[in-house]
């Protein structure tokens, strides 16, 4: 992203030290990197670097048929791929005037909230690891795996579901699936006190994260912060409630907020959101059996599918914040232009750089994980 990151600074002041923080670093996400200028242990300046591994998604999509992009879009955010599929499909549906059947909308909510649960468990683990606590990471990854088992059963894929298709979803729930979702939710809920004991109320974590990476609401709005990071500054904004899509307006859930705006507050928002997601999925389990099919609106032959000319901006609430797809069609068989407004592209660049300034070196990794950024969303 930044050529200057690959060159040493000319004549640095003698009291400064320059450190390449990543991409090969246990406290960094993916192949992300920061070039950090230090004075002692204090960060004077940090420059983010996307890593160039995941770049080119948007351009690549212009070369592919509308349907072929379905396999590409989830890859833009590995821990939380479902909202990517949903936002892209929603954009195409609106360009084509496709009405998504009600059952498909409920199935999509099921997928979105399970994905949010899995993503938050992953983030807790990562965040704990940056404070030196590796047990919550093992737990988080293992418990995420039971959600992935559900995805495997529903969609055939553990990580990349490729379950949404413009018009609806690809398959209905298998026999007995809803019961297994219910018992997995019970299991996850039974784990929450353990997580509290081990991680959220652990004094190592509390002490390390309170007051670190503090973002004011004003700053957050100026920097385009969304999602749990914004809600941790006291503003209850959530696309699911404020610009409802799918059937979220028929669901009963709260928007948890915190006010401190620091790493601790951000994590607590996610902890509360996980509970809300469990609550939403339980409502889906209750309602879904009484909602009749079909699960997909008829679509044309994917090999001969010209999407009518037009543009659409579809936004959804991912586990990381507001995720949007801007899709332009010129009436052809492939997108004319797509653009992804991933929440992480703000969180991992300008927010991270701002919060790192003045922080101590040992908190840099924690700040990054507390922002829950997804590097491919930056590169895209």
């Amino acid at each position, binding site marked *: 992203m930044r050529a200057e990151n690959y060159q040493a600074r000319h004549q640095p002041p003698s009291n400064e030290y320059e450190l390449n923080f990543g991409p090969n670093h246990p406290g960094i996400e993916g192949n992300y990197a920061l070039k950090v200028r230090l004075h002692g242990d204090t960060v004077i300046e940090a420059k983010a670097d996307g890593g160039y591994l995941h770049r080119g998604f948007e351009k690549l999509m212009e070369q*592919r*048929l509308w*349907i*072929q*992009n*379905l*396999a*590409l879009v989830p890859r833009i955010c590995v821990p939380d791929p479902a909202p990517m599929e949903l936002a892209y499909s929603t954009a195409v549906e609106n360009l084509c005037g496709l009405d998504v059947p009600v059952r498909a909308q409920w199935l999509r909510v099921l997928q979105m909230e399970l994905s949010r649960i899995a993503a938050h468990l992953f983030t807790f683990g990562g965040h704990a690891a940056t404070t030196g606590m590796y047990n919550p990471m093992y*737990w988080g990854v*293992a418990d995420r795996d039971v959600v992935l*088992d559900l995805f*495997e*059963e529903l*969609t*055939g*894929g553990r990580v*990349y579901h*490729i379950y949404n298709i413009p018009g609806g979803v*690809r*398959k*209905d729930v*298998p026999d007995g699936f809803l019961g297994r979702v219910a018992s997995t939710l019970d299991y996850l809920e039974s784990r929450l006190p353990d997580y*509290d*004991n081990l991680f*959220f*109320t652990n*004094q190592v974590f*509390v002490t390390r994260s309170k007051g670190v990476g503090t973002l004011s609401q004003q700053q957050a709005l100026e920097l385009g912060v969304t999602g749990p990071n914004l809600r941790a500054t006291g503003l209850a904004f959530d696309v699911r409630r404020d610009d409802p899509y799918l059937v979220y307006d028929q669901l009963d859930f709260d928007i*948890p907020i*915190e*006010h401190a705006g620091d790493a601790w507050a951000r994590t*607590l928002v996610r*902890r*509360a959101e996980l509970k809300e997601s469990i609550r939403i999925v339980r409502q889906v389990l209750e309602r879904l059996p009484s909602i009749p099919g*079909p*699960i*997909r609106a*008829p*679509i*044309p*032959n*994917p*090999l*001969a*599918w010209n999407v009518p000319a037009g543009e659409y901006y579809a936004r959804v609430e991912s586990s990381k914040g507001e995720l949007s797809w801007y899709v332009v069609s010129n009436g052809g068989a492939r997108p004319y232009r797509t653009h992804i407004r991933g929440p992480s592209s703000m969180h991992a660049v300008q927010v991270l750089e701002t919060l790192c300034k003045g922080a101590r070196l040992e908190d840099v990794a924690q700040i990054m994980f507390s922002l829950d950024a997804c590097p491919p969303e930056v590169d895209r």
Partner: protein
Amino acid sequence: MSDIDYKDKGSILNPLRALAFFGRKPITEKLAPRKASERYRGFHLNDWEKCVGCSTCQKVCDNAAITMVKVPGLPNDPVKGVRDLRPAIDYGRCCWCALCVDLCPTGSISLSQEYVHTCTDPELDSYFVLPDPNGIHNQHFPAGWSKESDNDLVDHQRQPMAELEPSLRIGDFSEMVSGYSKQQAIIEASRCVQCGMCHDACPTRMNAPEYIRAIWQDDLEEAVRQIYRTNPFAHTCGRVCTHRCEDACSVGHRGEPIAIRWLKRYAMDHVAPERIRAIVTEGRLSDKSGLRVAIVGAGPAGLTAAFDLARSGHQVTVYEALPKAGGMTRYGIPDYRLPAASLDRDVEIITGLGVEIRYDTHVGRDVSMAGLHDEHDAVLMAIGLQFGRSTRIPGSDQPGVYRAVDLLRDIVLGKPMAVPSRAVVIGGGNVAMDIARSLARLQKIQHGQVGITLTALQPEGHFPADPEEIKEALEEGIEILPARGPQSVVLENGRVIGLETARVMSLLDAQGRFAPTYDLDDRQIHSGEWMVEAIGQMGDADAILGTELTEQLEWARGRLQLNAEGRTSLSWLWAAGDIVNGPDVVHAVADGHRVAASINAYLNEQVKQGGTRHE
């Protein structure tokens, strides 16, 4: 604010809480791969019996992971729509999205529950796999993600073709089907998966995938351009082609094949004739070779050859015995299937290229074949099969017994025809249906009701006629009797009053030759004052060639001997069309192209050697 109480209690007993974990089941993963879920997207399976090698999976694959490879020993029959190609997967590229499964027209591909594959460096190519039903390690893993109605992306429903109600169409000879609207045509064209099976199955290798794609893009001039690359009888074939393409269509394996014929008709009917003429002359050689070609017979084979040769710069003259061009397409196919105006459009485009047609000129009577040879550098005989075969049953030589081709020709020529109120047609092919349905219309006009009985040797479901012809004939009130063999014409006072038939017991003998046997105890008499035989046609080349030429040429069992290019044993004489290869328009067109290429090569050689013999 959060419900969490994070204040440190600072109790010395806190570590004891961890003791509770001793009683819990640890979270462990087994070392061996665990069983995958029932719709897991693992390595591919492909049922080779169902797979036809259409390559749709390759087209939809978003990572170009699929390569179609030739598998020796598998059936490869373009007419049946089967290729010996099967998809091989490069697992270095595959992303297991399963779009190949969802779009597979035959439903042969699925993904399995197998997901482990390791290899050592020297075996890196083991990631390139040709899946079969046993999985990539022959371990018979069950299918995972498979095609169900929910995830099937193939559109099985054909756009319906509007046609006249039987009660409306039986009263005259107006065209039955009305053709697609623009919206219907675009939707129908969009169903095509571009596999090209139709192209391989078509006798003249029409570029159907290309013109279907052009119709989908609403570029009808491009569609016409693609159509005319291989078929100058496009208006005609768009209506009456036997559409081998649709029999081979890969979408037809589980649904209704793409209506390729109706799409061709749509494109031809919606481009103005002058634009078609302009498109057809694109790429025409402006140089004139100065060489002359005579073509005997203005049917599809003769006129196709004339079209090609005229485009190649030769001077073509066509000799036609009847007053109009088209051969059997005009004098054998009734107007309700192929209106004369549509055929006229095809002929006008061909004559527009400078092809001269001399009508009412009977070669062998008005001009001799030897005379044609004297005046031309090459001669093509494309005379068709103009004479009906007879059953030769007792009484078949009586007045009142007709051949179908003669009657069909007389109807087109407009000869007055007093049809009796009851008639019997013998035969189960398309010509039998044509004459039965034509006579039914005349009966309706003259008598107000239909009285036709059609008897065929074949059992029900095995008629040579197209199923839609049979269906439409039944709708029009024609009585169709399968497995009835004609025995004799019943006469009363020298007049035909009916046909006696016996039930057919078998059609073929032990060697598979045609030798019907009858159950003579099961006889029926079908009343009718006309008996129409529609059991096949024959040509009469001798009358056209003359005795001397007939003796010079080589024959085998009454058939003219030709080489693979359609050339006779005489260097200047070719033959094509039904007289060589039956039995339909599109085969005649294919034949016309084949001989035209041969004639053109011969003429170009003549040019090199000094030009025409005729100045």
